[in-house]
């Protein structure tokens, strides 16, 4: 286990520190800290109501957290000292040759996507239903297009610079459509696509914003086993070929255990376990949280578990 590459301790792309989110009297996230490794697939799991989606909403600027710091190291390595100085200085981000870092809790949501490079999908699909699949992917690339079109005027006149940019944007969109197997439905309204296809299109759209971190909220929800297996392949492709770090919320443990490099478990807004998939799977606290036992019973579960693992070594334990 120790030989394994623990990217999240050596090279974190996202560092969430002391994140607290309070809605009136409800404490949805309570002093949560975790790191997401660069180039990892990280799963955020936990029972319903554990605060997983709230964490996502804080990371993507949907909510302003009550307390805490969310730092995204887009590229290079930024020392903790530099980060502390940035925090004290009240700036939103620092971009330099040796690395750039963004304090997401201070930034507007569109800036988080545009300059920090975080993209997300939703639990309930939020495509632009009235626009075609292709247009959905083009909306995600509009920042490059706006610059190239000289803020629309060049676009209306059909200047060559804009045409080239429009062509490139379309190519990229087509490439992603091919990758998620939707090329033949490119000109259909997104709302007319079947459920599984809409999920894939939403992931493709998020990727068209050129993210360094892709946040997926239950991407496998409602997928059949075959679609779910295709999703695993897609996520691995995204990680391996595009170097995008993936943070996902998932209830389908098959997906989580198969593709995750790192699993973080939440319960009642607190982190109860953090490690590789096999470490987490054997953590008594996690099992207790999922089975819903009282705190006192955790020890008991732990004992039971020891007995069990003695008989049958957990898969993945051979690492």
């Amino acid at each position, binding site marked *: 286990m120790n030989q394994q590459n623990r990217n999240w301790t050596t090279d974190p792309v996202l560092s969430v520190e002391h994140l607290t989110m309070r809605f009136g009297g409800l404490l949805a996230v309570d002093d949560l800290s975790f790191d997401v490794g660069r180039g990892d697939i990280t799963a955020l799991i936990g029972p319903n109501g554990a605060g997983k989606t709230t964490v996502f909403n804080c990371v993507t600027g949907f909510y302003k957290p009550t307390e805490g710091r969310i730092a995204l190291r887009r590229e290079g390595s930024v020392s903790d000292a530099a980060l502390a100085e940035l925090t004290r200085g009240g700036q939103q981000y620092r971009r330099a040759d040796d690395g750039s870092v963004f304090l997401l809790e201070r930034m507007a949501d*569109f800036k988080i996507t545009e300059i920090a490079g975080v993209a997300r999908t939703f639990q309930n699909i939020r495509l632009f*239903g009235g*626009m075609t699949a292709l247009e959905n992917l083009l*909306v995600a690339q509009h920042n490059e297009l706006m610059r190239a079109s000289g803020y629309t005027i060049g676009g209306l006149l059909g200047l060559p610079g804009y045409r080239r940019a429009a062509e490139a944007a379309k190519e990229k969109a087509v490439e992603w459509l091919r990758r998620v197997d939707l090329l033949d439905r490119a000109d259909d309204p997104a709302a007319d696509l079947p459920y599984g296809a809409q999920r894939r299109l939403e992931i493709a759209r998020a990727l068209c914003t050129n993210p360094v971190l892709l946040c997926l909220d239950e991407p496998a929800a409602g997928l059949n086993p075959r679609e779910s297996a295709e999703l695993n392949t897609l996520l691995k492709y995204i990680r391996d070929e595009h170097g995008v770090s993936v943070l996902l919320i998932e209830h389908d443990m098959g997906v989580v255990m198969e593709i995750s490099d790192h699993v973080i478990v939440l319960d009642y807004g607190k982190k109860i376990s953090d490690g590789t998939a096999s470490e987490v799977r054997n953590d008594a606290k996690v099992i207790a949280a999922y089975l819903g036992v009282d705190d006192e019973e955790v020890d008991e579960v732990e004992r039971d578990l020891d007995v069990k693992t003695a008989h049958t070594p957990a898969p993945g334990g051979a690492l």
Partner: protein
Amino acid sequence: MEYFLQQLINGVTLGSIYGLIAIGYTMVYGIIGMINFAHGEIFMIGSFIALAVFLALAAIGITFLPLVLLLMVVVAMLCTAAWGWTIERVAYRPLRGSFRLAPLITAIGMSIFLQNFVQVTQGARVKPLPPQIQGGITLMDSPSGIVVQISWIQIIIILMTVVLMAGFSLLISKTSLGRQQRACEQDRKMASLLGVNVDRTISLTFVMGAGLAAVAGMMFLLYYGVIDFYIGFIAGVKAFTAAVLGGIGSLPGAMLGGLAIGLIETFWSGYFSVEYKDVAAFSILAVVLIFMPSGLLGRPEVEKV
């Protein structure tokens, strides 16, 4: 027959002006779901600025008509665009996310403010502009003595409307800005999470609507030759009616609604009585809305369960 044709030409001209104003209503409604009641006043300000430019040019001795008209329309568009941007910035943006009626009330307030502002600074009397473009093409000269004529100014108005509409449809359907606007229309929060600057997109929508209203204002000035501080209210209500009739939120609907209102008014005045032309227009609106609640081209709102 000749009489009918003449009324048709007049109706299309009037409808073009209504249609251009209606686009401003429909676009703003589409993107943020509010009725910008100050839009009629933007139209009125546009016509005042066009008149001011004309008088200023005349004062320094520039009378070459094409140049004068071009400067009038360009300056009027730029100034009203600035007005539109400012109104959105000071009166609507701070209230975004507030309850639904709040921006509606500020819109009415802004409308009254602008009317009174122009009344105080420009005076309440009507401002005349001597006819600049005279003559036209005689299409038919029947022995009964009725002449069917389309004047140059009518040709200019209709042509300009067609060109602007075409350019506008192109902008909405083909450019990245148009795509952004459509995305914001469907799901503002999601657009924002894809890196779209929603506030800027909304501002640009106001700017575009104001620009079109300025063109309509200038055409109104040239066509009728008199303006006052109150024209914005009447034209605004008519254009708003046109937008609702065509299906609010739909661009072709706004144009179609504008044409419909213009034609109804003209034909009613031509065949029945001038006094009741507004009654006719609004009655037809009521009837259409009873049978087609989302307007002629509007999409029905689907209730999600």
